[in-house]
């Protein structure tokens, strides 16, 4: 699936990934390929991204919102 992490200042990440772990307001949750459409708010924490070659990257966010639709994930982070 395709992931974009956008902040008001710049684009943090853009690319094909395998899995994402997000700090949801009600607790951590993960998104895998072909997840159902979801909109969730995020709290302060770490976004863990695993890309197609099993490399993980961490992004610290102060909060935000995530939208998943048609295998496209957009994280609006702060």
């Amino acid at each position: 699936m395709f992931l974009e992490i956008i902040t008001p200042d710049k684009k943090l990440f853009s690319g094909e990934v395998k899995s994402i772990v997000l700090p949801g307001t009600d607790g951590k949750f993960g998104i895998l390929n072909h997840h159902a459409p979801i909109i969730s708010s995020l709290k302060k924490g770490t976004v863990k991204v695993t890309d197609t070659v099993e490399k993980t990257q961490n992004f610290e966010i102060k909060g935000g919102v995530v939208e998943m639709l048609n295998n496209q994930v957009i994280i609006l982070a702060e």
Partner: protein
Amino acid sequence: MASLKEVRNRITSISSTQQITSAMKMVSAAKLRRAQEAITQMRPYAKKLREILENLSASLDSNDGTFSKERPVKNVLLIVVTSNRGLAGAFNANIIKRAVALAKNEYKAYNVTVLCIGKKGNDFFRRTEFKIIGSDMPRKLNELFDKLTYDNVAPVAEKIMEVYAKGEFDKIDIIYNQFKNAAVQIPTVEQFLPVVATKTEGKSSKVDYIFEPSKEEIVKDLIPRSLKTQIYKALLDSHAAEHGARMTAMHKATDNAKDLLRELKLSYNKARQASITNEILEIVGGAEALNG
């Protein structure tokens, strides 16, 4: 006719002014490019945020939130966004004029308070009878433009929202120069609070989203975010517009200096020629007298 020396002095002084204005023009052009880039960076974020919000509020009339509920208006706050430096043509004057007109006409019946972002506005409103707030902000308002990042602007926006939530003001407007292109700035008045209902263009998506934790919670979380983005966008716009305005002003100044220089050179040469002619006449006259 002015003496040679006088004209020469003026030529030197004008050409050094011209050097300064053309240097300022170049600096502004470079800064304008960077400011424009910042706007482009921010656009996808703002667009997506609005999309999600429209999507949500279409199926939810949340007209009872702290920020969206209309209250009877008594106290109005005007956020006036100007620049810290002058020499930008009518950039600051336009905004100040607009703000004063608003306060004296439309908001005549209310208590108007002003919050200035940018030194020029502050300098003006300090000399008027309007009440000014903003000295207790988490960031120095005038220093915002030195390092214009979302992280710097957000605390200020939060503070403004907090003041509104406490009920000190019933309506907050933001007045700034919208950036259209390098030569055109549009003085704009936008309502900041209460939130203007987002207009959905009748194409609410049919997608069946899962909402975590719930629609209401997400909207509650998103509205402050979109408000912060609104202020940030106004500041970015104003910043880019400022450099655009300064670039145009300095371009004009450089052109004017060029015209002046041409005229002065002409009169300098005329004076020089006249004095040479005079000298020759004197020499010839003297020679004639000797011969005679």
